[in-house]
């Protein structure tokens, strides 16, 4: 066989290649730097213009200059050529510039392969359903381009159709491979730093304003499905970072490594079982319902009862947890821990300190102080709002006595400061409160705007006790949701607007689909794979068994596909089939058609032998001849069938 370095591209093929470029670069446009999109567009338009005017491609020197300039620009933009974002940028540039030097079908193949890489690169930015659809469209165009490269004469609609058919035929194999290909939990090597950049979510410090900025985001934080009924809304405190360290303005977590076990034992009863799917946020936190019962194989616990994953959540993670809403812990916490929970910087918030001293004097016990503080918060007529005024240095004082408007972090901050000033150990807990049950699939969805901050105080003999100062001033926030609690006119995320019920209904359905997608497509990891295979009856799914099953099933699928394609080839012309049937029938009376006998000659012979059937036979033969050798119409075939059925020689 002669070695062929590819034939020259014909115009149709050039247009297909350009379509491929557009189809894979367009979905990336929102995610990459605008100059990249502009540069790629210019290159593609240039190529299109050259193809249109039938002009030669630019010289290799000019292209070399462009490649070097593009690479330098990427280097300047990212300070590196390695990693995900620079890699995608380079792919886009090379794909676009490759068009300007593509002369043969082999160059065309290189473009299509680059396009496949870019179709994959989209998933760095989003793996949601729209991204999958966009990528599928790109793959369809790229496949059609492959077909066009292999057969330049084919018409575009036929090529597109054939590409679609071939991709559909590839689906069964894809499904098998997806389910059974032994999964490895990545990464195989250290991910570049930009792999999990800039995601919305809680941070590990709390200062005024840090949570209210989340209130505008309806991004999903995590989803939960309870084994039994969903508990009351006011019990849904999802424990995130606990912040006992205070510097006068910001609250921070303890800087201690987590433990494999929770510092308390699991109670015998009262547990709620649920599974949670946490969206990737780049941190270790798992948001368990207060208080978690025990750590799992994949989680640790901090000393202040927060569950943390062993690895940062760069991907969506699933955890099966059990929590005890009635549990109180920390009765035996030592002196040092309590001392840290009493610390206030010198000179901070003098007005609260004075107030707390008055409470202390009037009260018999810590419980009394707590009651006094709660009633103070209630009587102070504090306004819960999404748009609180800015606060100065003494944020707790100013909030409590001057502005009296705040979001949950202002409430938690002020309450914790007041408790500490009164000599009661207190700390801030951040996390999420509430959630919304999706009526479509029953999953509770917790969004970023459910982010919340509350406090815990330590009482002798009882341990840490949750006190939510927001609930005191704005009970509707806890009993219902944010929308019910904030004043009318505050800007709310779209999902929270009560007047858009139909929109919410659509969103519920879409969320349910997206959730199923997340779990079954995106969340299909090694654990999930083992689970599923066990449920499907594979006793100990290890990679050997999976590979064996994969081989067997792929073989079967191939056989089925082969049989299908071969069956297609044997499907005869229906008119011919009827005609052959007639010959067999007449053969029983010694009147089988001779191999070289045409339909009309055969009809003549049959008519001579069977005069009573002459008319019918002639009609059938004429119909058949018209179907086979003339312009066969479906109506003719129908008539032939009809006549055959009533033909009884």
């Amino acid at each position: 066989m002669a070695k062929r370095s590819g034939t020259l591209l014909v115009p149709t093929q050039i247009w297909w290649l350009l379509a491929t470029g557009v189809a894979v670069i367009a979905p990336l446009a929102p995610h990459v730097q605008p100059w990249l999109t502009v540069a790629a567009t210019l290159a593609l338009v240039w190529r299109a213009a050259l193809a249109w005017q039938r002009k030669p491609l630019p010289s290799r020197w000019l292209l070399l200059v462009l490649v070097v300039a593009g690479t330098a620009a990427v280097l300047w933009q990212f300070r590196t050529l390695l990693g995900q974002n620079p890699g995608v940028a380079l792919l886009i540039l090379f794909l676009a510039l490759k068009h300007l030097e593509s002369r043969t079908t082999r160059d065309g193949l290189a473009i299509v392969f680059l396009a496949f890489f870019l179709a994959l690169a989209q998933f760095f930015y989003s793996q949601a359903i729209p991204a999958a659809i966009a990528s599928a469209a790109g793959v369809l165009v790229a496949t059609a381009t492959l077909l066009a490269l292999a057969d330049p004469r084919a018409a575009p609609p036929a090529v597109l159709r054939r590409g679609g058919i071939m991709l559909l035929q590839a689906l069964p194999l894809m499904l098998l491979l997806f389910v059974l290909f032994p999964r490895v939990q990545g990464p195989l090597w250290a991910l570049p730093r930009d792999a999990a950049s800039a995601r919305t979510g809680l941070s590990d410090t709390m200062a005024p304003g840090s949570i209210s900025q989340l209130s505008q985001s309806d991004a999903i934080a995590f989803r939960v499905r309870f084994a039994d009924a969903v508990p009351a809304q006011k019990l849904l405190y999802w424990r995130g970072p606990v912040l006992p360290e205070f510097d006068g303005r910001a609250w921070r977590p303890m800087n201690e490594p987590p433990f494999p076990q929770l510092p308390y034992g699991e109670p015998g009863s009262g547990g709620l079982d649920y599974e949670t799917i946490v969206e990737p946020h780049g941190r270790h936190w798992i948001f368990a319902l207060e208080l978690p019962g025990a750590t799992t194989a994949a989680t640790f616990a901090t000393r202040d009862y927060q569950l943390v994953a062993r690895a940062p959540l760069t991907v969506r993670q699933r955890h099966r947890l059990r929590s005890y809403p009635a549990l109180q812990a920390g009765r035996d916490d030592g002196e040092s821990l309590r001392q840290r929970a009493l610390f206030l910087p010198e000179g901070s918030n003098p007005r609260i300190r004075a107030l707390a001293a008055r409470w202390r004097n009037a009260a018999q016990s810590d419980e009394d102080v707590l009651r006094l503080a709660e009633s103070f918060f209630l009587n102070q007529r504090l306004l819960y709002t999404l748009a609180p005024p800015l606060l100065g240095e003494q944020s707790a004082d100013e909030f409590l006595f001057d502005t009296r408007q705040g979001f949950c972090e202002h409430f938690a901050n002020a309450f914790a400061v007041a408790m500490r000033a009164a000599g009661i150990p207190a700390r801030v807990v951040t996390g999420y409160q509430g959630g919304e049950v999706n009526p479509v699939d029953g999953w509770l969805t917790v969004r970023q705007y459910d982010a919340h901050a509350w406090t815990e105080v330590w009482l002798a003999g009882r341990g840490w006790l949750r006190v939510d100062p927001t609930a005191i001033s704005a009970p509707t926030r806890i009993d219902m949701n944010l929308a019910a609690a904030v004043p009318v006119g505050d800007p709310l995320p779209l999902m929270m607007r009560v007047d858009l019920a139909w929109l919410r209904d659509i969103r519920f359905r879409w969320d349910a689909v997206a959730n199923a997608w997340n779990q079954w497509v995106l969340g299909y990891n090694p654990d999930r794979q083992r689970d599923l295979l066990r449920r499907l009856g594979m006793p100990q799914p290890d990679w050997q068994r999976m590979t064996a099953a994969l081989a067997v099933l792929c073989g079967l699928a191939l056989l089925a596909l082969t049989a299908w394609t071969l069956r297609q080839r044997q499907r005869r012309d229906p008119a011919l089939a009827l005609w052959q049937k007639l010959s067999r029938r007449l053969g029983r009376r010694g009147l089988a058609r001779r191999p070289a006998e045409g339909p009309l000659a055969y009809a003549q012979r049959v008519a001579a032998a069977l005069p009573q059937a002459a008319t019918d036979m002639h009609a059938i033969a004429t119909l058949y001849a018209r179907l086979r050798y003339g312009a066969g119409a479906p109506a003719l075939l129908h008539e032939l069938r009809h006549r055959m059925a009533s033909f009884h020689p």
Partner: protein
Amino acid sequence: MNPAAALREQFIRWALRVRPPEESPITLGQRRVYVLPTRAGLGYAAALLTMLIGSINYNLSLGYVLTFLLAGLGVVAILHSFRNLVRLKVSRGRTPPVFAGEHVAFHLVLASDVERQALRLWLPDGENTTVDIAANDSADACLRLPATRRGWLALPRVGIETTWPLGMIRAWAYCAPDLRCLVYPKPATKAPPLPWGAGEHGGRRAGGQGNDDFAGLRGHQPADPPRHVAWKTAARQGEDAPLLTKQFDGAATARIWLDWHDAPGEDTEARLSVLTRWALDAHAAGLDWGLRLPERSFAPASGEEHLQAALTALALHGQA
């Protein structure tokens, strides 16, 4: 032949699966259709492997989906390529004789009950052609080979391959159809004029030159006497017009013997070459001509069949 080529030849002989030449029609059964990735296919596989590693490393579930979909596409391409070739029916087509020095056009008829695209047929010397076949139809594939020597020229082993639809998978098969072409000797370019003087062999009737009465014009043949060329007509029609020869009544009655011993030439091939030229000229001139070869002779006659028989004898002289 170097060892690699010998091995290759060995493989092809094995791959052919039958002893050549084969009875026509040949149906390419599944056992003799082979499938391997092309270079583009290997590139595709490498690209998929890279994509798989990327998907694993970045935990891209949809990356797995995409990679596996494209892997499935590759497998489907194997099926389509295989299906595009398997059960193709190859039978002999019309292969008219030619003269040595010309090209033989071997015609093969490819029949199929399904639509087939871009089937490429090739010969060991690199000659190739590409055909498409519609469903329940047949197509003619023409492979040309230079005819260097007179006698039978057998169609060498034919390879049939297709990389349709994606160009990544190549399905191919070998077949050796029982097709041969008769190659007549090359007509001599510088032959002496027709041997009118060969009278002692019972050649021509006296006075039968047939240049008595002008009867019409016909295309000029190189052996025509120069004085019969219609020079006046040629001058009127200009340089590009073909030369015409004047025909005269009595030509039909002219008889001539083309004799092996009259033909000049130092060897057999040269003589055959001259005889071929004479036979063609005599036929073109519409003469009654006979051919005398050492082992057989053809009585004077005229007509296409006579010419074919004589040329066949010339082609196979000393060979069968």
